């Protein structure tokens, strides 16, 4: 029932994006989040879209699969779009229907903002789809390493993140199982009045919380039993390897940034 969600899922296929250094991917996603805000007209949004779809293509993750997994996000995007149609009152009137008026500016804003949102989600999803949680954590820890000088708990933060990411799919599976078990006991998760729906959440959430707490405790015990005592002096089994591909990808993004700067209004 929950198996379609792709947020936090890693897809093990062979692709250039999978081969990249996680540090490079993290840098790219971070930069992308910044430069998305440079786009302000059709050409610049077009450039961003082409770049993003190039990345999707390079990831070798089937496009239809990604779209299927982002269904919930589409509703959010649609909502943003409609909000803009209603609230932005600039430019010429495109059409009028009773008290409902659509301005040209509203339509444009709606499309642009939804697109910005969509591209951001797509790029960040690509990161988790092509990078294992462990890699993401290692990458982050390395990138944030300099902050350790300022007593910033980099290692602890990275560990917390990797554990959360690691357990998202587990939690999804668990949710699926408990939903099935409660469905067999007569709960209807997919229909009913709003009140019935809210009531049906309790038999789902309580077992989930309980198993999560139990799991956290077991994990803590297992880590201590294997001698974990924090990041101090810990060496690494996996070493990150920066390659030409990574440099190339960063240069590509730099070019995209340049293009954006040139073509924006």
């Amino acid at each position, binding site marked *: 029932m929950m*198996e*379609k969600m792709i947020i936090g899922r890693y*897809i093990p*296929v062979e692709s250039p994006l999978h081969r990249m250094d996680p540090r490079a991917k993290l840098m790219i996603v971070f930069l992308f989040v910044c430069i998305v805000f440079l786009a302000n007209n059709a050409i610049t949004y077009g450039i961003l879209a082409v770049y993003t779809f190039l990345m999707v293509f390079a990831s070798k*993750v*089937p496009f*239809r*699969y990604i779209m*299927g*997994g982002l269904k919930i996000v589409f509703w959010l995007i649609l909502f943003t779009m409609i909000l803009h149609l209603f609230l932005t009152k600039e430019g010429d009137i495109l059409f009028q229907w009773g008290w409902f008026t659509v301005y040209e500016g509203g339509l444009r804003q709606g499309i642009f903002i939804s697109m910005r949102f969509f591209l951001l989600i797509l790029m960040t999803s690509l990161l988790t789809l092509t990078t294992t949680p462990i890699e993401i954590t290692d990458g982050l820890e390395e990138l944030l390493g300099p902050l350790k000088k300022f007593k910033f708990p980099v290692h602890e933060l990275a560990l917390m993140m990797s554990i959360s990411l690691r357990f998202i799919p587990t939690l999804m599976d*668990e949710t699926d*199982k*408990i939903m*099935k*078990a*409660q*469905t*067999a*006991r*007569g*709960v*209807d998760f997919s229909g009913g009045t709003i009140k019935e729906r809210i009531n049906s959440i*309790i*038999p789902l959430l*309580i*077992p989930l919380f*309980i*198993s999560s707490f139990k799991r956290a405790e077991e994990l803590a015990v297992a880590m201590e039993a294997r001698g974990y005592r924090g990041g101090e002096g810990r060496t690494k089994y996996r070493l990150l390897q920066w390659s030409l591909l990574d440099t190339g990808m960063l240069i590509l993004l730099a070019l995209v940034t340049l293009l954006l700067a040139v073509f924006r209004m």
Partner: protein
Amino acid sequence: MDISLQQVEYRYQVNSPFEHLALEDVSIDIPSGTYLAIIGHTGSGKSTILQHLNAILKPTKGKVIIGDQEVTNAKKQKNLKSIRKKVGIVFQFPEHQLFEETVEKDICFGPMNFGVSESEAKRRAREAILQVGLSEEILAKSPFDLSGGQMRRVAIAGVLAMEPDVIVLDEPTAGLDPRGRKEIMDMFYRLHKDRNLSTILVTHSMEDAALYADQIVVMHQGKVFKKGSPREIFQSPVGLMELGLDVPEVVRFQNKLEDTFHVKFSKTCVTLEELTEEIHRLFKKVGELT
């Protein structure tokens, strides 16, 4: 209530890189009152079959007929709840589904979802808790203060209180101690006989399959490998061994006995009682000869 699976195919996560063909061309008939055991290796599709028996999963191809209702891949189907009322499933590790403040409330949850009144549900809770071998005092406790074995029994009571016509059990005794196992399996068998239920049991214990079931289905890689009575299934251990499955200890013992003493029993014995009788008969025959 008769249940019938007809050429059922099931694919998990269709249209994704994780798409997985879990069942292929599975046809099984379960006439009312049958005790059916499903055996097979981990991952052979046993739990997937069980979830078809009350329309939690719908076949991607083929159909499942439950009583007078047909479940297919069609988009909208009504009255699934009435199916679920009649077919109770005890999932693997059912103790994970407990959530109420008290044991009594948790057991009443299922029946009340299906429209049973509170007083009737409470009566059933009391009956069910005794059936699973716990005492009435437990009803007032929190399910999370119980031991693992007690939680399992409470969860089972929650399904029994729905008073289904068909009981579906997914490895109900996994992780219990030997005595608890036997108690629970005997309890299900008694219920099966007393209430004339259909029972479908997934198990890794060949002994349980041989002892309780009328019919056995052997699953292998999503397909039905073999079906028949326990005797038919365990007659030729070779095929089962190839699948990494075993035959009951009793059958193994009989085969060894036959090999060592070059005798042949009149039939494959699947329970201890049968084997004892056969050996007794053999001794008598040997006694007469000498």
